[in-house]
């Protein structure tokens, strides 16, 4: 059955023949598709029959975006509500007290705050050096080829290793090595401690900054680099004065990603940090982080204030992560090169 397409093209109110729809036959599939996806609306115009119209698609996108925000606030609210008993009883002193005593009911989160920030920042400092080196190496020097793919693959593999395996490896091999060094330099030969945890964390967070950095560095426009080279700059000077400043904000975004991972890392840290709930006195001393104390004590916690204090530590971690992310974003925006 052939169908005629009629549309009022000249505005005279009279529908004229503008074409025909192909009937079933050799063009059957095309015809079927056309019939399925393209229909005629009341005035004879083409209309998509797909349920996924433009407006539906947009609505779905909005919904997904909003549900992410709603989820974030839901987490924030539920954490606050569950930690109310502790907030009411201890108040703001929770953030500055350094006693964690489940027996007498005194709780303070300062040792864990200090432990988290110390380990994350030291890990970041160590990791940034290596990430930057790897991203320059892969973004500038070995952009293509077997070496590049190999190193890229290995660095990305580091990100894929489960953190529990880092913890086991750390405990079985790294800790004795650190203990050996500590015995040589005459400090308490624990093996575990802030330094060990920071070193293992730094290995774990290298891939994030390295991958993002590599992408950004490889996207620096060639004409900028060639201009510098033509002015007589050495390769190193090109990297220092053209590539890195251009890629600054992207590299910083990668660094921020790494820091975010380091702040929340639980399993690997809890196995090698020594789990001492007191403020650390030196970099070799054992300490504890917020994620680690929650992982350790949550299952056995009885008592309203004890549980609420653990949830409050989660809340503090949440807020600290949020603040660091916001500050980081501001820095990235400020550092971005105007185009």
């Amino acid at each position, binding site marked *: 059955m052939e169908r005629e397409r009629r549309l009022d093209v000249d505005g005279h109110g009279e529908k004229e023949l503008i074409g025909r729809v192909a009937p079933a036959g050799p063009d059957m599939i095309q015809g079927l598709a056309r019939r399925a996806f393209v229909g005629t609306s009341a005035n004879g115009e083409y209309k998509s029959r797909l349920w996924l119209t433009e407006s539906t698609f947009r609505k779905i996108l909005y919904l997904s975006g909003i549900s992410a925000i709603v989820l974030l606030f839901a987490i924030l609210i539920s954490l606050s509500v569950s930690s109310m008993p502790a907030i009411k009883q201890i108040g703001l002193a929770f953030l500055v007290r350094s006693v964690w005593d*489940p027996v007498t009911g005194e709780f303070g989160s300062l040792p864990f705050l200090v432990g988290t920030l110390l380990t994350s920042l030291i890990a970041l400092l160590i990791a940034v050096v290596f990430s930057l080196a790897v991203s320059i190496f892969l973004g500038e020097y070995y952009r293509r080829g077997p070496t590049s793919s190999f190193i890229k693959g290995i660095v990305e593999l580091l990100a894929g290793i489960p953190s529990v395996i880092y913890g086991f490896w750390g405990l079985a091999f790294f800790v004795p090595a650190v*203990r050996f060094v500590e015995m040589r330099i005459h400090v308490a030969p*624990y093996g575990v401690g802030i330094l060990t945890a920071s070193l293992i964390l730094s290995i774990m967070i290298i891939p994030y900054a390295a991958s993002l950095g590599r992408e950004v560095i490889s996207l620096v426009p060639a004409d900028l680099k060639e201009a510098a080279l033509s002015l007589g700059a050495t390769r190193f000077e090109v990297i220092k004065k053209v590539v890195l400043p251009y890629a600054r904000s992207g590299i910083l975004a990668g660094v921020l990603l790494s820091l975010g991972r380091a702040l929340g890392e639980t399993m690997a840290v809890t196995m090698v940090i020594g789990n*001492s*709930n007191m403020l650390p006195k030196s970099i070799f001393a054992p300490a*504890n982080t917020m994620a680690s104390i929650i992982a*350790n004590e949550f*299952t*056995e916690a009885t*008592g309203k204030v004890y549980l609420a204090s653990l949830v409050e530590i989660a809340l503090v971690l949440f807020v600290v992560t949020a603040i660091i992310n916001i500050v980081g974003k501001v820095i990235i925006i400020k550092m971005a090169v105007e185009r």
Partner: protein
Amino acid sequence: MKRFVVVLFTLIAASGLASASFGEQQEIIGAGATFPFPLYSKMFDIYSREYGVKVNYQAIGSGGGIRQLINKTVDFGASDVVMGEADMKAAGAPIIHVPVCAGAVVVTYNLPGSSDVRLTPDVIADIYLGKIVKWSDPRIASANQGMAIPDLPLTVIHRSDGSGTTFIFSDYLSKVSKGWQEKVGRGTALNWPTGLGAKGNPGVAGLVKQTPGSVGYVELIYALQNKMAYSSVRNRSGMFVKPSIASTIAAMNTGLSSDMRVTLTDTEAAEGYPLSGFTWVLAYREQAYQGHTEAKARELVRLIRWMTHEGQKYAEPMQYAPLARDAVAKAEALVRSVTYNGKGLL
């Protein structure tokens, strides 16, 4: 295609109905301590084969078991820790503590070349308080006459996670050392004055094995299975007792209160190992509460009675200490005191 989908759905629905009819039989739900989990697994498996009643036990920790029992989401809880006053009040109704078996905590150490180190209660307390810092301390030497102990610094290792093992250990130290009682106290998680924390028995054992001159505490079963070096401890009668199943059972030979909310630490029994402890099954004394039928209550009571009588023979082969005769009698009395609407169930 359509026909295949219809057939598939019918099959799924049918199997769902079938399993629902199997689930008609009583299933008892319990949760709690991880220490007796291997023993309970075996006990419940045999019980379901003999009596057809399935028991679903989740080893979420003593604290979790107590919490779930208070919330009445489980039929019974299991704990290595006696419920505290606050928890008993939160529960609202009396909860019985029925002991099922006992375990012990050993003090393990890493001293190259030494074995069978003997420790006294005050020495252990002062090591964990941070007052004794070297193995060459005269107080350790005096308990170990004639043994050459290397002069290593003492590294104290404790549990980083909350645990019934920590409870038994701290309960013992609170009884034998006033300094410990004042400074630290007893609990599943403590404010340790010194030392490194490791997660779980394997964590402590691993760290002790790696660190020369270290001392830590683990469950007896774990130490036996992993062939670790552990010390003899002097008990209240003055004997240096080596931890074993026999000495743990011997620790029960003391006056036990009828509600069995007793800890066996620092036992008066002459040959008992002083770092022993019960593990309990917890249930409400009055079983007529929301969602709890009389049939379920009767099954529960039968299960607990079986665990304290016929189930005891599975304890020793798995290296748990079975209940001594007096403890069994007291457990029986507790089980008989469970009522449904005031009426006894057994």
